[in-house]
């Protein structure tokens, strides 16, 4: 990143190779929209080019890039409200040898994730899927490490409740998924 900052634009290609898939997954799991996720990843790298001078030596790069990613998403939704937040086909794909019950549970879990309030979903995506250190997540969301841990616990408890509700009414949830009616709640 220091080379990119000092003007070696080609080095950005290396960073793209390393980070575009994790960033894409961050957005895909957060928004449930593939096309938008692709666009936001491009926006992140454009912002890195434009704001590379703001990168300071010693700053954890992953935290910096995810800060840019969060800002890009916030700016996007400030301009336009999310309209197609969940693509049903984005539910986990069938894998050979996957027991039917396990597959069904992972689908329900995916839907439960999409029903979580956005800030809780983001926290789980950052900690569980992106595996960012809690210290980095605390810096990103602007609170202490202990607060992050408590919030993760609460998010998991809420996920558990939604998951149970979906398990109790799988037929309804399937209908709702077909109608693409999973608008993520706005950040409070």
């Amino acid at each position, binding site marked *: 990143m220091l080379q990119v900052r000092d003007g070696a*634009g080609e080095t*950005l*290609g290396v960073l*793209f190779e390393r980070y*575009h*898939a994790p960033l*894409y*997954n961050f957005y*895909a*799991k957060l928004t449930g929209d*593939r096309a938008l*996720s*692709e*666009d936001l*990843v*491009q926006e992140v*790298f*454009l912002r890195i*080019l434009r704001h590379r001078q703001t990168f300071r030596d010693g700053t954890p790069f992953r935290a910096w890039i995810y800060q840019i990613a969060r800002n890009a998403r916030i700016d996007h939704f400030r301009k336009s409200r999310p309209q197609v937040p969940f693509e049903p086909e*984005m539910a*986990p*794909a069938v*894998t050979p040898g996957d027991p039917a019950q*396990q597959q069904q*549970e*992972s689908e329900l*879990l*995916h839907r439960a*994730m999409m029903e979580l309030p956005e800030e809780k979903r983001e926290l*789980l995506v950052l*900690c*569980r*899927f992106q595996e960012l250190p*809690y210290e980095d997540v605390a810096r990103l969301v602007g609170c202490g490490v*202990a607060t*992050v*841990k*408590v919030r*993760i*616990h*609460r998010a*998991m*408890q809420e*996920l*558990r409740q939604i*998951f149970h509700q979906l398990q109790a009414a799988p037929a309804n949830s399937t209908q709702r998924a077909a109608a693409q009616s999973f608008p993520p709640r706005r950040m409070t």
Partner: protein
Amino acid sequence: MKCEEIAVLLPDYLREVLQGDQKKVVERHLESCVECSEVAGLWKQLALIPDEQPSPAGRARFDAMLQAYQAGQGSEVVTRRADKGASIWSVFQWLRSPVGAVAWSIALVALGTYMGLQLGSAKSNSQDLAAMHTELTSMRQMVALSMLQQQSASQRLEGVTWTRREEHLDPQVLSALMHTLRYDQSVDVRLAALDALSRHAGQPQVKKTVVDALQEQQSPLMQVALIDQLVEWRDAEAAPGLKKLRQLPNLNPTVRQRADWAISKLN
């Protein structure tokens, strides 16, 4: 220990970084608390949700964006070099002396007063107009960029039309236009993008994108349009690409004929 107290420890336990007494405390709690135990199970189950793979077009979009950005930066460097050339004025270093500064100040105040009297209102108007023009340009480019990303082909077509209103395009808009040329689903939109890009032949990445697109496009209509564009630009570097194209086994005969004609023109 209560669930509220375990909340701070559980995330570390789930990441398997908790050790010693604290780990034992959490394990004891999980044995007695169904809710927290389920949470721990759910955390593991989240791994069942697979990762999504980004499309390969993402890399091409990124390359186009990077090229467009660097081209923009290149022109800035030229400007900076021109500024350095101005250092020949350093022979007037004496003007930096206190006496020189006073003389300059008096001269500038006099000049300023005179110019102010002569052009005062006109100048402020022209400044306002320049600012408005810049704002309008930026707004048009933003509209174009937004329309190029719409689902509807007619809206994307309109987006391409918007880009024609500007003489100099923002790197991001240029990059989006090149992406449209290569990957848009509609032939009409791709043709319109080619037409819009033909005005930006000065940008090296535009010519390269058109040459690359020649190998990628399947539509004969599009292939002929690309060939004609390369001939119009008299881009001799396109000849190898054209030769490669005409050797494709299932190429439309009309396209092959056009490619032959183009090769003869460029040689």
